[in-house]
Structures are given as structure tokens and as C-alpha cells.
């Protein structure tokens, strides 16, 4: 169920169109929404490698988001190291953390795996809440504002942040497109479909899972650093927030798991809906916009369980088959 061939072209077009957006969109409010869309599309794309292609349904990606955020912030505040370097250090920390987490969680399949991943993120949050001496405990900390300091990943306007997160998303999509076409891409889908059959045709299932979990964790951690730099604040509740894990999975499910552009499409759909509902209904009865949002979500999942991209692929396949049969 992959849209081969024109996936790459579509990707290039989407990225090109998005590069021009800040030239047109000047309102900080609108840019903020766009940055959040790209950020969650990026996290979703990272999640999709493990949760979408290999169907290892993690709800613990906040663990890596938080580790990335804390690593770069600690390096910056305690040692004056630029978040540009800290970002990749955070990626490496998350990658290493994924090894024991994966070692534990991959023993379990299906819902049990999911529950175990939730637990790991919660445990990490508690560790950062309790141990005050090395990471500011529950109060968290603000990032010292240096004004316009590109080398420290700090900017006056919002446009530079937009380009950073767009770059991250483009890189993640590039990696995904490459994986999708290579041997590991076939292996991931095979593992997601039938683990025993995958083993039987010579796939080292634990190794492939471990590798893709490392890549997925690395990318998610980069998002953590970016977000902390963007909001100038970090605390355990923000960095390890369960809603990050949920959002990562949700945008992929709505857009289409195991497809290149699914998480991006899912995020655009969910975030714009949420923003529009907020501006239309936010001033009426409290919480009504969340109720409507949830209803829309349920409708999408009920009617299109394969996501938007899954639906597109079905239509495409039907179009292609009908001239041959008729």
C-alpha cells in the first residue's frame, strides 16, 4: 500500500511550497501554528518509522523528546555548549536509552508493548521530577535569553524557527523515503504484518526492531531540543508530557500509518482543525471545542481506519485496475 514513484516528487513539491510560506505569512500567531504543525509532523514521522512501518505501537516517545530536551539544556546551561551540538548529543543519549528500553519492551507484543513504553516515559518523568540537584526538579528552568544568537539557536523572529523545523522534517522525510525503498523498509513492513513469517524468511526481527527504534528515538530527541529552544522553558511535565506520545501516534494514524506523508497530512488536518475550532468555539461554553475535535477524530478513525493516505492509495489502486478489468 505504498505510493511508489510519485512519493518522492510529491515530497519535493511539498517542501518547496513550504519553504516559501514565511515570505507570505507574517503574523507571529499564524507562524506559531505552522511551526507546531511542522514540529508534530516531524515527531509523527519519527514515530511512524517504528509505529507505522513496523507496527510497534509505542506510546512512550515522550521519553526521547524529554531526553533530547534535557540533554541539550543541561549542556547549554551547565557547560555553555550550543544547543546545535546539544541537539545531536541529545539524539545520541536518546538512541542509547532506546537500547535498554527496547530490550525490555520488545519482549512484549501488541498492547503489552504499548503499556511498557508508556511506563518508561512516565518513569523518566518521575526521575527528572525527583532529582532536583542535576535538573532543577519540578520547577524546571528558563533558557537564558541571549537575544538574537543564531549560534545558540535563539532568534528574534519566528521565521528562523520555522526553517529549522522544516529542515528537520525534510530530513526525517528523506530518511523515511530512503528506508521505504531499501531492504530495511521491506523488513519493517514484514515484521509489522507477521513476525513469525518474517523470522522464517531470514529476518533478524529483534535486530531490525532495535535499529529502527534507535533511529526513531534519535529523531524524536531532536524535536525535544528544538521545542525547548523555541519556548525558552523546560520542566519534566512539558518535556515528558504524555500528550507528546499520543500526538505522535495520532497524527500518523489519522494521516495513514506506514506511509511517507501520512504523519504530515495527519498533523495538518488535526492541528488546523484544532486551531480553527479554538478560534470559532473557544469563547463559547468551556471545552466545547475539545468535544467537537474528539468527535471529528472518532469520525475519521471510524470511516477511514487506514488513514487519509490509505484511502488515497485505495482510490489510486481502483483507478489503475478499472481500465484493465473493464
Amino acid at each position, binding site marked *: *500500500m505504498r505510493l511508489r514513484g510519485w512519493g518522492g516528487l510529491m515530497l519535493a513539491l511539498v517542501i518547496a511550497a513550504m519553504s516559501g510560506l514565511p515570505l507570505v505569512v507574517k503574523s507571529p500567531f499564524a507562524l506559531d501554528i505552522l511551526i507546531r504543525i511542522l514540529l508534530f509532523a516531524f515527531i509523527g514521522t519519527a514515530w511512524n518509522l517504528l509505529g507505522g512501518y513496523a507496527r510497534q505501537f509505542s506510546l512512550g516517545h515522550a521519553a526521547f523528546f524529554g531526553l533530547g530536551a534535557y540533554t541539550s539544556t543541561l549542556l547549554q546551561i551547565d557547560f555553555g555548549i550550543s544547543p546545535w551540538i546539544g541537539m545531536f548529543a541529545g539524539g545520541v543519549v536518546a538512541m542509547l536509552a532506546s537500547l535498554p528500553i527496547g530490550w525490555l519492551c520488545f519482549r512484549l507484543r501488541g498492547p503489552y508493548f504499548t503499556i511498557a513504553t508508556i511506563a518508561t516515559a512516565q518513569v523518566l518523568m518521575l526521575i527528572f521530577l525527583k532529582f532536583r540537584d542535576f535538573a532543577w526538579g519540578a520547577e524546571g528552568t528558563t533558557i537564558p535569553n541571549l537575544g538574537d544568537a543564531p549560534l545558540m539557536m535563539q532568534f528574534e523572529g519566528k521565521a528562523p524557527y520555522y526553517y529549522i523545523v522544516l529542515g528537520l522534517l525534510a530530513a526525517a522525510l528523506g530518511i523515511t523515503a530512503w528506508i521505504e*525503498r*531499501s*531492504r530495511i523498509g*521491506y*523488513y519493517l*513492513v*514484514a515484521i509489522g*504484518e*507477521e513476525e*513469525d*513469517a*518474517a*523470522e*522464517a*524468511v*531470514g*529476518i*533478524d*526481527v529483534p535486530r531490525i526492531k532495535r535499529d529502527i527504534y534507535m533511529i526513531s528515538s534519535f529523531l524524536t530527541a531532536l524535536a525535544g531540543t528544538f521545542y525547548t529552544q523555541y519556548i525558552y522553558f523546560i520542566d519534566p511535565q512539558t518535556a515528558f508530557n504524555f500528550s507528546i506520545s499520543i500526538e505522535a501516534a495520532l497524527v500518523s494514524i489519522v494521516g495513514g500509518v*506506514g506511509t511517507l506523508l501520512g504523519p504530515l497530512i495527519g498533523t495538518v488536518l488535526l492541528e488546523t482543525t484544532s486551531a480553527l475550532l479554538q478560534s470559532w468555539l473557544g469563547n463559547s461554553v468551556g471545552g466545547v471545542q475539545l468535544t467537537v475535535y474528539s468527535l471529528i477524530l472518532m469520525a475519521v478513525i471510524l470511516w477511514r481506519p487506514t488513514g487519509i493516505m490509505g484511502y488515497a492509495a485505495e482510490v489510486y489502486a481502483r483507478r489503475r485496475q478499472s481500465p484493465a478489468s473493464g
Partner: protein
Amino acid sequence: MADALIVTNLGKRFGGLRAVQDVSFTVRENETLALIGPNGAGKTTAFNLIMGFYRPDTGSVSAFGREMVGLRPHDVCAHGLARTFQVAKPFGGMTVVENVMTGAFLRTRRPDAARAKARDAVDFVGLSTRENRPARDLTTIDQRRLEMARALATEPRLLLLDEVMAGLNPAEVDQAVALIGKLSGRGLTIVIVEHLMRAIMAVARHIVVLDHGQKIAEGSPQEVVANPEVIRAYLGSSYAPAAAGAAP
């Protein structure tokens, strides 16, 4: 002829149940051996023990001179043993050719080379016209063909087929028998688990009979169908005279 697979004193317990006990047999290269017996006799468990899906409590499995016990299934596959499953396990969302490519990737990293090899295997089992269909849309016999193609693409020397004829109609059984003959003609060693005596008589040169996890008989098809113990445990008394007369 050299020995392809030597199973010695194989044993496996599940709690109080002795699924397989003290089973030994040898498969020679380019031979087709059938493993038969009533339901629950331990045939599929024996497959799982040979392929590394379960670890045996006792005994050894030696394939082409190398010990397989302790290896994981993908390692066993890399050593040239491939299997199909009793209940076909296709990768449903992938197309037929993509399914087979996952097997071909064992011997090559390059997708184009894997695709070419997968096409050959798909062609060999007679699925070429459906190679771009999603595997979940296939009929039962085509799913079995797909499993065979996927196994073949790993370039096995020994192929273990688990009830590939179950659920097929008589015409399809003939096709499957022909396909197994063709595989054997390519030099493959085959171990087949099967219930259908007609198919077994057509393809097997050697039969091992299991009952309650133990080997109760072994020999040529003619010897086995005439064996009173086998008739009692598995074939039923009505089979004996008919089979003895009809045996080729």
C-alpha cells in the same frame, strides 16, 4: 547420497504434555520425506523445533553437517532451511512480489536484484499473473503458492512444507503435487507434513509416522501403509486393503 537433515532423540514438553519425545529420523539429500500422523501427533511441533521456533528439551538437529539447535529461526533460514506455515502467513498489505522480495533479501541487499529473483520464484510457483496483487486478496491455494515462493527466494536446500494441501480441492491438490515434484526436480530436499494420503503416496519416497509425539513407524510408502500399527493409529482399518492394492 549424503544426509541433509539428521534429527536425533528430539524431545519437547509443554507443561505436562510430551509434544515430541525421542524422535529420530534422517532425510537424505534430494529426498522427499513425509511426516504423517493424527492431529496432535507432534508434526508441526517437530517443524518448529527443527526451524528454531522452539528450543528442544532434548536431542539435536543437524542440517548439512551443522547443528541447528540453539539458533534462532532467521539463522536457521540463513543456513538453507526454509518453511511454510500450516496457516499461511502472508504479509497481507504487501503485493505478491514484495512478499517474495522479503525472502530474496536474505541473499542480496539490492532491491532491484531482489525483485528480479522474486519474480523468478513467483513465476516458478505459477503466480506471475497476480504478482502485483495485495497478498491478502489471494485464494487459499495462491497463498500457499506465495508461501512456497517466499521460502524459495531464500535459496533453501531443504524445504519444510506444513500441510500445504489442507483446504484445497482435488484439482488444486494435483497442481500442488505437481509443484512439489517440480521443486524436487530442482534438487531440493523436502520434508512435508500432510494428511492427504493420496498426495503423500504421490510425492514421498520415505514416510515417518508420529503418534502421541513418538515415532511409531518409518519406511517406504508401501511398507508404511501395510504396517498394522500405522493402520491402527492413523489410517484406519478400511484403508489397508485398498491402499495396498492401489499403491504404485
